[in-house]
């Protein structure tokens, strides 16, 4: 942790790598279907001929860039480029629709940098103690965490509670199709081999978010996004002022993101969502979340980038990767002869600390790089005529879905879900609850089966589900998020009656 490691991370070669990684990652992340996992998997061999710390800096920079890049498509096309950016669509797309897309992209950049820095500093200063968080979470805690995630549907779909819950339930049903993760049963395939692999999250994201946007673009004569007539100056200053005013939101969301990032298997989508709903719960009366509220973007984007540093904590300290990109970094380290796990910080300290400083530097570089690419992405999406935009994006949805596992089936399922999503969208069912159900369903199922198995074996089923203190805390939050919106709605209804 000495200053020397910081200097060794600062070599010109490492700086070039960090900059290249951030730019490449941002571009990859912005294209739905291309994931950080893919980019890292392809690039790992390049790192074999580098020294381990430089290799890690490159991989970490790509990863953090990709999580930020996911915001572009979320804001400009209402399609999360990565699952981490789901909650970015809630306020990002409404902002873009009303002509504030450039502001939204700049906000996402500031938030991502803050979140990335908080996560990386946690990794630098607190990794060994924080890795205990990963171990404190047993199966039953994951079960309750996913139930908590599902309960957020209630607070996110104000006025549409039943439709939100129905969408969540449908998503969970979809998640059970195919080979079950822990029981290995083959379920709901109706004898067809097509469904053995189940519904992939990325394919569902592309189908449920992007296809309805494309259909609407074709079906309506309006422009895709509203553009102001007068070309305004860069809105970086405005974005910075908003971000500075919401510093409390930024810090809280970054801490949430770091903590959830430490939990292997939970990931950026859950972190973004929890941070978003916390921001919404504590909102000022004049803030309208879901209709283009800047704080919504700040919360999600800071939280999901904080999961990068958070996720490396169990990867490096325990040798247990938090996310698929972490797992690839772990593999690259093993090839380099670096042993991750409990002894890594003492035995390979110089590599670890150079890497962490490299990650910090890459995060800082994301500020200028991200703002520039963001401006360019916004301008091109706004200026491209619809006749070009629709086929281009349509083509990318198909290539992106196919490339996940070279499967035509996935493309068919994606298109099917897309049309389905557009139809039910007409009746007020949003895409997000369905995708949430799809992501959280397997986590809930696994946690439940494992908790039930352990609970029955030790003869303490009730204590297993309700007697553990972390579980009780999550249950309390769940009840709060379920009933608070109902309570507020009830109070607001009561007020005018009292006055009259």
């Amino acid at each position, binding site marked *: 942790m000495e200053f020397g490691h910081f200097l060794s991370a600062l070599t010109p070669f490492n700086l070039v790598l960090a900059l290249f990684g951030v730019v490449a990652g941002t571009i990859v992340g912005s294209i739905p279907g291309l994931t950080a996992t893919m980019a890292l998997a392809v690039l790992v061999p390049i790192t074999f001929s580098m020294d381990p710390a430089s290799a890690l800096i490159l991989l970490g920079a790509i990863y953090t860039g990709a999580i930020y890049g996911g915001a572009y498509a979320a804001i400009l096309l209402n399609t999360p480029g990565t699952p981490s950016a789901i909650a970015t669509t809630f306020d990002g797309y409404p902002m873009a629709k009303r002509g504030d897309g450039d502001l939204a992209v700049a906000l996402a950049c500031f938030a991502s940098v803050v979140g990335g820095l908080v996560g990386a500093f946690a990794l630098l200063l607190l990794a060994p103690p924080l890795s205990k968080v990963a171990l404190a979470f047993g199966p039953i805690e994951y079960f309750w965490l996913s139930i908590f995630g599902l309960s957020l549907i209630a607070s996110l779909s104000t006025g549409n509670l039943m439709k939100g819950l129905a969408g969540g339930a449908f998503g969970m049903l979809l998640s059970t199709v195919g080979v079950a993760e822990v029981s290995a049963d083959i379920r709901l395939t109706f004898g067809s081999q097509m469904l053995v692999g189940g519904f992939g999250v990325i394919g569902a994201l592309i189908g449920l978010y992007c296809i309805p946007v494309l259909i609407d673009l074709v079906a309506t004569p309006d422009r895709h996004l509203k553009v102001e007539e007068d070309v305004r100056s860069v809105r970086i200053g405005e974005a910075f002022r908003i971000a500075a005013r919401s510093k409390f939101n930024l810090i809280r969301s970054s801490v949430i993101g770091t903590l959830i990032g430490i939990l292997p298997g939970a990931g950026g989508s859950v972190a973004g969502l929890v941070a978003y709903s916390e921001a919404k719960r504590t909102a000022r009366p004049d803030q309208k979340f879901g209709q283009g509220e800047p704080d919504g973007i700040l919360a999600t984007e800071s939280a999901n980038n904080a999961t990068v540093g958070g996720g490396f904590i169990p990867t490096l300290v325990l040798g247990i990767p938090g996310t698929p990109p972490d797992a690839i970094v772990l593999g690259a380290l093993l090839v380099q002869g670096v042993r991750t796990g409990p002894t890594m910080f003492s035995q390979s300290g110089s590599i670890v600390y150079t890497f962490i400083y490299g990650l910090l530097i890459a995060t800082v570089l994301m500020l200028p790089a991200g703002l520039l690419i963001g401006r360019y992405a916004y301008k091109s999406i706004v200026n491209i005529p619809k006749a070009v935009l629709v086929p281009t994006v349509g083509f990318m949805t198909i290539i992106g879905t196919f490339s996940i596992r070279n499967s035509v089936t996935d493309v068919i399922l994606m298109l099917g879900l897309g049309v389905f999503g557009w139809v039910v969208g007409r009746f007020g069912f949003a895409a997000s609850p369905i995708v949430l159900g799809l992501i959280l369903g397997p986590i809930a199922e696994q946690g439940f089966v494992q908790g039930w198995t352990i609970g029955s*074996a030790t003869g303490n089923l009730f204590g297993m589900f309700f007697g553990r203190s972390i579980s009780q805390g999550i249950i309390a939050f769940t009840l709060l998020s379920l009933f608070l919106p109902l309570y507020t709605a009830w109070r607001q209804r009561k007020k005018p009656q009292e006055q009259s």
Partner: protein
Amino acid sequence: MLKRTFLKMGAALAVTASLASGASAAELNGPVNYIIPFGPGGESDISARFQQPFFKDKFGQDLVISYQPGGGGAVAWATLNGLSDDGQTIMGVNLPHIIIKPAQKDVGFKTEDLKVFHMFHFTPDAIIVRADSPYMTLEDLVEDAKANPAQVTISGSGKATANHLAHIKFDKMADIQTTYVPFKGTGAAVTALLGNQVKAEWGYSTVAATQGEEVRMLAVAMEERHPLFPDVPTFKELGYDMVGGAYRGIALPKSASDEVTGMWSDMIAEINNDPAFRQQMLDNGFAMLDVEAAGMEDFMAARSEEYLNDAREAGLIE
């Protein structure tokens, strides 16, 4: 003029001769696509990553690893025979998965559809406990399980997997009843062990290599002790006839020619015979295996019989 004709004939003859010489005719042109039917970070991924630099070094081409998880590997294996058979695409295969999965239900591929040309290592089954566990020896665990039937909880990766089959087999041999808790992959099963959610883990010797002093391996399912763990007894030494684990190899599409298959079998064998590669694998807790294309049929037949018997007795298949 005449001289030129002779030269041409000579060249043609030379080409024919080189074609006739068989295996040497097949060669790689360009990077190879190496598909892993699981996500990154597992034993399949790590061992493929170890092969990567050696392959580039020996044969001058890149081995490009991609992940196609889904259906416990079934999604990728079902697509293998539709891929190009010119030797530019290979796919990792795992035992017992490719034997048990198709026996359960129609998952889009059959075991014999996969042209496995080399099995290059296995991860031996092992029972692992936390360093602070009261179980100092395998006997301690067996005694506790006898005194408290079903109360000893053991995590493992998935169901109908090597871990699960090892659990069933050992419980029967030791005449005990323990509770197996399936997790998604080895990483999650180890997290549950370290987090004190379960009392032991059915894992592999690789887990003990990664976790070092945090854990204790009670026994390992090898013929002889693993060189990395000279103090850990084998199950055999302790009176349980258990040798095995999860076996990993590589396959080509069924339509690949004998030349291509032979070339690949030789190339992977060459990497496997490199002392530096073997050492790296052993240092990370793997155990080497050298089943080449020629001996594959017998190897697969023997493994299939054992796995299918175990799975049938356990009620996993009919």
